[in-house]
């Protein structure tokens, strides 16, 4: 024991062993506490940090809705294109590569060099919106410092034909004109974003959270019929060229539903290539321009007189001596007659006759009737910049104003308002609200006239397109048509121009069961002819015939070819 005790080191005090043990235990306790702390208390923070190392926020693109015609034909569609941009400082390319790049982007090599020479900027667009095939070729060049990103571009396959209705979007894919602007909220998509985890190969392996759900824009079906639209545009274009008119407009309305089947304007523009656009090209004259309608308003004067019982269709109106002087203003007829029936006032388009009928009417009634027809209030098509037209307050009406308004002067309307007002005659007295969007359902109208009066005026309007009326050129083979011409002098410097006119025609067909209202307007026809019956009525005939055939409307007239009116068969209109 003593020997063993001799080689053993001197015995240490036992508190040292306990001390070491205690320190070790304390160390473990600290580690355990730390791990508890990390596991439970700080776990969210750490998890976030971890995700941040391999989680990414991705943009979820949303597409803009398409615009379709009533049969589903595409009028506007967005498709992705690439935009090429560069960081000038980083671009290192050989002369041959630059030449190839300039060729692909169809830029002049000097122009490309100028853009790349600007080393101070770190973002330069080389070319925006190029087709994907070209973009692939650009990428294949492999020039460092040249990048691409995806954008959406809007295409309009119908081109200028439907340009004024559809409108267009800007480079940022936001609506700027027409339906694109009016229905921006519906068409526009809302891009979303989401947080995802990518693996080391860049594949998305887990969806952590959707920050904002993407919402694609909705498609919009318009009331337009692309075929009728194309027909109307072509007919209007040829008339504008033949008569060297400054502008022209046409609108075709389905009487039963109030849908606008065609709406065209000239001058037009190609929405796919909008370099050098002028305001005159963009303007949708049908809804935003107002003009003095002239004689196309006479049927309404007569209709009011008929419904108030002041005249009958055969009442004789004394029109001798072919002029009527009210104060310092004289109303004239082109073809003076001693007296004519109310029906002939419409058929021959007599200003004196219409004025005399109007002067016998209470002005409050006349104002109220025009207001009920929708004059002086926007037609509520939902189109940007709709004109309300001008209807003076009744208190300011003098007899001369009442007389001139009877034949469409001293009042201004848009072509859309005029077409809508004519639905009254086509629908037995009901005024039908117009719509640019497809509804496919019969529209409920508002009764403005009694059916009897509407039918009486309809008969008068049919007589106006027969030989001896003002618009025999409006007739078509196979269908009975009815309508009224208008030829009004343009206003300038507070008076009326002597040689500048607006020729118009508003009519409907077939008379036995009206289906379409077509309104045509030509601004300043200057190739000699300027009467509505000569300039606008043939456009009406062409479009009506084609549209009725396309719609499959049954014939209601014998199939006898219609020749041009003979000498003296066409009444000249008073302007």
């Amino acid at each position, binding site marked *: 024991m003593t020997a063993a005790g001799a080689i053993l080191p001197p015995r240490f005090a036992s508190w040292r062993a306990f001390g070491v043990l205690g320190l070790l235990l304390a160390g473990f306790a600290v580690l355990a506490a730390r791990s508890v702390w990390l596991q439970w208390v700080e776990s969210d923070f750490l998890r976030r940090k971890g995700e941040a190392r391999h989680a990414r926020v991705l943009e979820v693109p949303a597409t803009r809705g398409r615009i379709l015609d009533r049969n589903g*034909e595409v009028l506007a569609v967005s*498709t*992705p294109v690439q935009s090429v941009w560069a960081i000038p400082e980083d671009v290192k390319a050989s002369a041959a590569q630059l030449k190839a790049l300039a060729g692909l982007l169809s830029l002049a090599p000097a122009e490309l060099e100028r853009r790349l020479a600007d080393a101070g900027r770190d973002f330069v667009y080389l070319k925006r919106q190029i087709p994907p095939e070209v973009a692939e070729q650009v990428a294949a060049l492999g020039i460092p410092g040249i990048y691409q990103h995806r954008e959406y571009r809007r*295409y309009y396959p119908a081109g200028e*034909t439907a340009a004024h209705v559809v409108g267009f979007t800007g480079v940022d894919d936001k609506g700027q004109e027409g339906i694109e602007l009016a229905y921006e909220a519906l068409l526009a998509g809302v891009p979303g974003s989401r947080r995802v985890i990518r*693996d080391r190969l860049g594949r998305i*392996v*887990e969806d952590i959270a959707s920050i904002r759900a993407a919402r694609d824009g909705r498609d919009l079906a318009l009331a337009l019929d692309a075929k009728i639209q194309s027909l109307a545009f072509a007919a209007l274009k040829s008339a504008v060229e033949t008569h060297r008119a400054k502008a022209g407009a046409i609108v075709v309305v389905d009487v039963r539903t109030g849908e606008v089947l065609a709406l065209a304007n000239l001058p037009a523009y190609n929405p796919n290539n909008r370099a050098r656009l002028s305001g005159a090209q963009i303007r949708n004259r049908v809804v935003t321009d107002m003009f003095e309608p002239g004689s196309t308003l006479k049927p309404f004067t007569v209709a009011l007189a008929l419904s108030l019982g002041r005249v009958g269709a055969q009442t004789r109106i004394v029109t001798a001596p072919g002029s009527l002087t009210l104060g310092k203003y004289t109303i004239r007829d082109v073809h003076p007659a001693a007296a004519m029936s109310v029906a002939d006032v419409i058929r021959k388009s007599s200003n004196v006759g219409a004025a005399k009928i109007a002067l016998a009417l209470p002005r409050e009634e006349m104002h109220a009737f025009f207001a009920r027809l929708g004059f002086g209030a926007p037609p509520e098509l939902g189109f940007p910049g709709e004109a309300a037209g001008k209807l003076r307050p009744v208190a300011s009406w003098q007899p001369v104003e009442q007389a001139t308004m009877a034949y469409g002067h001293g009042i201004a309307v848009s072509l859309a308002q005029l077409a809508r007002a004519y639905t009254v005659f086509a629908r037995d007295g009901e005024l039908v609200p117009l719509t640019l969007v497809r509804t496919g359902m019969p529209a409920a109208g508002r009764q403005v006239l009694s059916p009897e009066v509407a039918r009486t005026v309809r008969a008068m309007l049919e007589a106006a397109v027969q030989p001896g009326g003002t618009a025999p050129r409006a007739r078509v*083979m196979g269908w009975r048509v009815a309508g009224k011409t208008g030829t009004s002098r343009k206003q300038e410097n507070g008076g009326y121009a002597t040689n500048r006119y607006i020729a118009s025609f508003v009519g409907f067909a077939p008379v036995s069961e009206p289906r379409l209202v077509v309104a045509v307007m030509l601004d300043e026809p200057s190739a000699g002819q300027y009467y509505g019956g000569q300039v606008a009525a043939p456009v009406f005939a062409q479009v009506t015939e084609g549209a009725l055939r396309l719609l499959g409307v049954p014939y209601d007239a014998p*199939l006898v070819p219609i020749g041009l009116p003979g000498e003296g068969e066409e009444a000249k209109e008073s302007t």
Partner: protein
Amino acid sequence: MAKLNLLLLAVLVACALGLVTSQHQARKRFAELELEQQRARELEVEYGRLQLEASTWGQHARVARVAGAMLGLAAPDARRVREVAGAAGPQEAP
């Protein structure tokens, strides 16, 4: 007691491995789903482009031009069109 603990340990390890595997499987499937969705988007884009093309070729004015100039077609005179009674028409056929 020790045996039970060992058994539970084995079960625990198996569960942990299962969790890892299923997580891996889920991620693989998800990556596949993403690829398919990407493909769907690309097809959507192509569909839009084809629609655009179809609409461009099918413009009424162009069809009329081709029919008239190249094929020598013309709309028939209304007198040469015969209307067939509705019951025999293709639309009304049962």
